[in-house]
């Protein structure tokens, strides 16, 4: 197993950062480092954000009401700031998934060419 070391344009990741983060939080509450690690593991290291820039995104999500934060003990017994998705956040996640589906379908249609051409 070796990750494909693809050079993703930061813009692409930036656009779907909210989708990725809310998705991970929908599964379970997580703290910042956990989110980074999970992104790395699941994408086979294709997604590697500059880790510090995750936090402005999380804080913005909290300001907008899509997530809530609280302090709790993580593994290793250290206190951590956990993030939890809110009901408003779940609605937004559904919207983002919808947007992503439309986007990826449209891209596929364009590059698919003949495969997707109307008969």
């Amino acid at each position, binding site marked *: 197993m070796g990750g494909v070391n693809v050079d993703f344009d930061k813009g692409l990741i930036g656009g779907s950062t909210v989708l990725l983060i809310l998705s991970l939080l929908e599964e379970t509450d997580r703290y910042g480092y956990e989110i980074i690690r999970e992104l790395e593991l699941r994408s086979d290291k294709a997604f590697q954000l500059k880790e510090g820039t995750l936090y402005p995104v999380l804080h913005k999500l*909290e*300001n*907008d*009401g899509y997530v809530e934060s609280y302090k709790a003990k993580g593994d290793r017994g250290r206190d951590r700031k956990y993030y939890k998705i809110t009901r408003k956040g779940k609605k937004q996640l559904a919207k983002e998934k919808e947007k992503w589906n439309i986007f990826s379908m449209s891209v596929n249609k364009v590059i698919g060419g003949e495969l997707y051409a109307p008969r």
Partner: protein
Amino acid sequence: MSRNKKIIKNIVILIILFFVFSKATGLYLTPLSAHENSERSIHYGPSEVIHIEDFDRGKYILCKYDKWVSCNTVKRELFFFWRFGSQVTGFENDKAKALDYTWGMSYENYKLYGIINDDKIRKIQITLNNGEVFTETEFYEDLFLFTWKADNDDQSWYFNNIKGYDSNNNIVFEDEY
């Protein structure tokens, strides 16, 4: 909850609490609001405000209600607020007299006010026990108001007598304490 929502929630709570607090403590945001509420809670009025005059602690509000004349006091409190007046209710005008009046004081602030029933009266003069004389030719509709501040709390500052004059300086009305 997002920060902006929290701010709005706080503001709404503050408006409600302030309203409740204001009603419970008798502190109001405007002098007229304190005046109107004081009248209603003592079951008087609502009177028509004829004239408002400032004094160092607040305002005198000279009013008419039906056959009564009153001069309510509202005092400034805690910089922004106004408190309920004292001496809210008025006296009943005796139309048989050329002028009718009453007077009172609160600490060193004195007031004498009344109504002119005979419109021949053009000038009113009052004398205090200590000899000081005040003259008024400015009337508010048919009401008048004298205010004075005492230097001490002895009776020399009390009202002694009042005289009402017509335009030829004849005495039309006279009375003593």
